[in-house]
């Protein structure tokens, strides 16, 4: 007996995800150049200066968040079999968020005390995105474990920006001044391990089997991954406010168990693949999971030996770049050709010869590009740990060049 599929409606208008992706390319290049020009401050451990705030927010919000939003406009219909609630609203949301992120980054650089208003514009853009996704996910006929991961990631994003705005208000008015360090740490944790990691977990469960053509794998482990990781986040935030080191240690232990379970789960999925040879960009997205595991292990060891505060900077850089950024770049290298191919060739498939996905993007470039990116980050991290200026600059120049080449590779797809 055959079962007919649900209609997923029309595909997302390509201009919507591409608006986010193009903006993000510019943001990553500018942010890396800013880091390059303020290397001395980073090496001296001065992370809380206006230029570094500006670069960090441009990187995290202008690049990673914008790209995640753009990718979600494309992936949510694919993963959840439901069309985006309102595309026009999506374009308006893009314009508001892009304006907010740009003015926020500029204000943080030149006059941080004036960052509240652009911060509120950015907040509005992100709230619009959350509303859009909430309305879209509501339409999903059968919520599943992926919905839980992505839904929780969206809640973490909401809490992150709420905390971020509270921090700006606190800085401007002195409101909740004594809570500032706790709010700041919660902001960082929820923004990275909450929003990005849970989002990558969720979409990896769709993309890893899709890109490897895996079938017949179990999904039971996913709920344990979710349970361990989210509990870890709750325990760590609890430890900030209750000032209990033991809670923090237990929280980091839970994060490690959660991440290790995820790694193991993906290994079991990939073992069931039909496609013998995996594409390079996708292999690097998988490698990012291994890096994430190592970073979680190192963070746990640092917490257990009471050395976390000494290593938090390099660990954060490694977490952002080798886990989050490498995952995003790896998947994006696959998603963008899909987007452009669908836009340009879907109407002529079967009628004329069409290129394959591999023809759409320079795959040969992937190997030196990803290796350059990874090496650059590793050198930057060592430069920061050992406080060696030369190492930092060599690494940061490599990362900046890799970002530019990555941007050009993505733009080149649009000429195919």
């Amino acid at each position, binding site marked *: 007996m055959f079962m007919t*599929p649900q209609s997923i409606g029309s595909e997302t208008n390509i201009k919507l995800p591409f608006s986010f992706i193009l903006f993000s390319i510019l943001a990553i290049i500018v942010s890396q150049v800013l880091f390059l020009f303020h290397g001395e401050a980073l090496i001296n451990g001065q992370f809380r200066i206006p230029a570094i705030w500006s670069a960090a927010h441009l990187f995290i919000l202008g690049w990673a968040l914008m790209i995640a939003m753009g990718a979600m406009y494309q992936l949510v219909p694919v993963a959840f079999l439901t069309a985006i609630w309102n595309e026009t609203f999506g374009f308006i949301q893009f314009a508001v968020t892009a304006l907010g992120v740009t003015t926020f980054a500029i204000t943080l650089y030149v006059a941080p005390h004036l960052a509240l208003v652009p911060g509120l514009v950015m907040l509005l853009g992100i709230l619009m995105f959350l509303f859009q996704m909430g309305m879209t996910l509501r339409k999903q006929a059968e919520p599943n474990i992926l919905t839980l991961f992505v839904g929780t990631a969206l809640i973490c994003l909401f809490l992150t920006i709420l905390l971020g705005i509270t921090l700006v208000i606190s800085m401007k008015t002195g409101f909740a001044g004594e809570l500032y360090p706790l709010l700041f740490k919660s902001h960082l944790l929820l923004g990275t391990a909450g929003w990005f990691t849970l989002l990558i977990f969720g979409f990896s469960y769709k993309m890893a089997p899709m890109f490897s053509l895996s079938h017949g794998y179990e999904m039971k482990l996913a709920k344990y991954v979710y349970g361990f990781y989210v509990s870890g986040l709750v325990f760590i935030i609890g430890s900030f406010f209750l000032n209990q080191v033991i809670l923090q240690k237990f929280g980091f232990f839970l994060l490690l168990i959660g991440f290790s379970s995820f790694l193991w789960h993906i290994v079991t999925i990939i073992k069931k693949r039909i496609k013998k040879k995996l594409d390079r960009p996708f292999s690097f997205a998988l490698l990012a999971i291994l890096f994430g595991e190592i970073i979680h292990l190192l963070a746990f060891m640092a917490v257990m030996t009471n050395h976390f505060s000494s290593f938090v900077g390099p660990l954060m850089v490694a977490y952002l770049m080798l886990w989050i950024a490498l995952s995003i770049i790896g998947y994006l290298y696959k998603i963008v050709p899909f987007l452009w191919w669908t836009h340009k060739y879907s109407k002529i*498939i*079967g009628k004329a010869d069409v290129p*394959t996905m591999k023809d759409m993007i320079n795959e040969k470039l992937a190997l030196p590009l990803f290796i350059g990116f990874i090496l650059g980050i590793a050198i930057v991290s060592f430069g920061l740990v050992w406080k060696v200026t030369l190492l930092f600059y060599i690494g940061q120049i490599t990362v900046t060049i890799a970002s530019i080449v990555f941007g050009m590779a993505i733009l080149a797809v649009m000429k195919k």
Partner: protein
Amino acid sequence: MDVQNQAELLDKIRNNLKRVLDPELKLNVVDLGLIYDLSLVEERVAAITMTLTTPGCPLHDSIVSGVKYCVEEMEEIDRAEVQLVWEPAWSPDKMTEDGLRTLGRL
């Protein structure tokens, strides 16, 4: 149309469908095992029941419209009715030997 001619036409349609490639896997829809059923409901009307490797495949619209076009452009066919189904779910055992070989599984 007699049984033999009908069988020949169905073979011809099946061969023509091999022009529709999954651009990610570089494999045609027939060898990938996506075509579940192929029949002639009327003399010049073909019915195709097919699936995709995963629900929500991003190439959903492209592959289905490619299949429809490939059959409708044949001079023996006026119309193709394509039905996309998820049950029974696609699995690798539906692939042909050629398909498995292309993906390095044989």
